[in-house]
């Protein structure tokens, strides 16, 4: 409405890009904005809530960290124990997100394209890791993969020790982040038009060529988004990991646990330094996810479009 009016004015007076014209447009935009009530109340409540719950606490964290200064934060984060914790956390999260990228692609494909008995139940069950409290996941996976557990009993004689090793961290993180890739890929696979695949096939492409050249490139942005979402979630995960990790400093200790360990030793500044580094990483990943989603949306617009 308001855009249209402004355009109309601009068309009528193309050479009068003066202050009057601009302020007229602004005036109209304010007027059309105020048709619906409650903007002030809604935005005011939202901002007050966000300020008290997010900005004030995070501001407090950054203020506390500023007592340390940049150099000291780096010193703490790059200390032997912290560096080992960061390495374990990053490698395990990357591996878990990778496992989920591969199997998530298969599961999403199978849920959209294939029919099999119990499909709707399987589809609903995929969200279990989002609904199951992390502590429950932690003790259950630890019990499953322990030496006398259902799975550990067969894996340990083969030389695979999972529980209480870094491998256990990967297992817990894989469980926790399982839905991300599946749920970001599913709608994109649903939107792929089979006409394109038919065209490729009729031009002589094998099914594998069609997948590699047509389908996979279309899925790539969503796959990367799902991977990054899973990775971001895995980095911060705490509840499920601590039960299965063994929590040996330098070997299987994750950063969130190290933060708590420092807090329990009354090393508040040390905990703050690590928390600020984690927060910066979270911000970076959030930005990456936003860019990836924008890429997905744009790609979608260019590729599809013809859907009724």
């Amino acid at each position: 409405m308001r855009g249209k009016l402004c355009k109309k004015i601009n068309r009528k007076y193309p050479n009068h890009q003066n202050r009057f014209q601009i302020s007229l447009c602004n005036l109209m935009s304010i007027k059309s904005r105020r048709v619906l009530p409650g903007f002030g109340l809604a935005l005011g409540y939202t901002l007050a809530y966000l300020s008290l719950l997010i900005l004030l606490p995070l501001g407090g964290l950054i203020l506390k960290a500023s007592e340390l200064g940049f150099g000291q934060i780096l010193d703490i984060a790059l200390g032997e124990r912290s560096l080992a914790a960061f390495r374990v956390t990053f490698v395990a999260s990357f591996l878990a997100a990778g496992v989920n990228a591969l199997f998530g692609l298969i599961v999403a494909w199978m849920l959209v394209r294939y029919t099999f008995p119990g499909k709707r139940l399987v589809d609903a069950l995929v969200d279990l890791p989002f609904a199951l409290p992390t502590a429950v996941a932690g003790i259950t996976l630890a019990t499953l993969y322990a030496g006398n557990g259902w799975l550990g009993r067969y894996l340990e004689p083969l030389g695979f020790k999972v529980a209480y090793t870094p491998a256990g961290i990967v297992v817990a993180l894989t469980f926790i982040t399982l839905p991300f890739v599946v749920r970001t890929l599913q709608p994109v696979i649903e939107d792929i038009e089979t006409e394109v695949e038919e065209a490729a096939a009729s031009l002589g492409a094998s099914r594998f060529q069609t997948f590699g050249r047509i389908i996979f490139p279309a899925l790539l942005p969503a796959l990367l988004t799902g991977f990054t979402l899973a990775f971001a979630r895995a980095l911060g995960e705490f509840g499920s990991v601590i039960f299965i990790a063994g929590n040996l400093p330098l070997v299987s200790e994750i950063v969130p646990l190290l933060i708590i360990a420092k807090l329990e030793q009354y090393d508040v500044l040390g905990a703050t330094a690590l928390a600020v580094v984690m927060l910066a990483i979270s911000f970076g990943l959030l930005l990456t996810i936003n860019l990836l989603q924008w890429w997905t949306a744009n790609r979608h617009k260019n590729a599809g479009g013809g859907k009724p």
Partner: protein
Amino acid sequence: MKSTRATEEPAWVRRALLTAGLGFLFFFLVLPLAAVFTEALAQGWGLYAAALKEPETLSAIGLTVLIAVVALPFNIAFGVAAAWAVAKFDFKGKSLLLTLIDLPFAVSPVVAGLVFILLFGAQGAFGPWLSAHEIKIIFALPGMILATLFISFPFIARELIPLMQAQGKEEEEAAVSLGASGWQMFWRVTLPNIKWGLLYGVILANARAMGEFGAVSVVSGHIRGETNTLPLHVEILYNEYNAVGAFAAASVLALLALVTLAAKTIVEWRMKKETAMLAATLAPEKT
């Protein structure tokens, strides 16, 4: 050669993918779920029931429900307000606001707990003032509610924003131009339009609020029978090698997860049905 359609994989590929996908889900979803209940009932129903009737377990269940019940109204009000502002109006800094709403999804729960300790803890910014007035926030209920709010508030807003954006503002504008007051418009037009989306968000936020471990663990202080939610109680029992007790408490949370999944699926199904109905009624005039 068997006849396969051009847009289908050969049968052996299909079979291999199904085996890989379902096998993965079996080992990572079905087996853990089965293990929770098997472990809880490992010593029979009698011990399971006794473990659930422990006063500390009961008080943990009570505290978990209490925190969720307190947190939900705040989350609902925030979700509706944020979605109303973001979906129906244009203003500067909207994408920044959306990023802030997403932040709790990306921040580690441990960091979420820590920030409240830095504010309200004994050495925190408001610590001295609070202790002078004998107000306890950290290692007490208020801190646990704050941490839960931090972790769970984006769910409802995240669900409502795209829904309200897709619905546009014509219906509300019509109501207002016909003389409805703001609240009349909200109760009669907006709320009926978003009720399923709102319920969906409530289900997700509630599951997260009841199941949260990391953030609540940091601010709780683990005082048995006092600041122990059910997920925290699971940890204590497990660390005491009380497997039946731990898994009995865990089975309650697993049941909650299953109820959540079922409710979510039903609501999804209702939403799809309603959208389909809407599309069917709109179709003739659109084409």
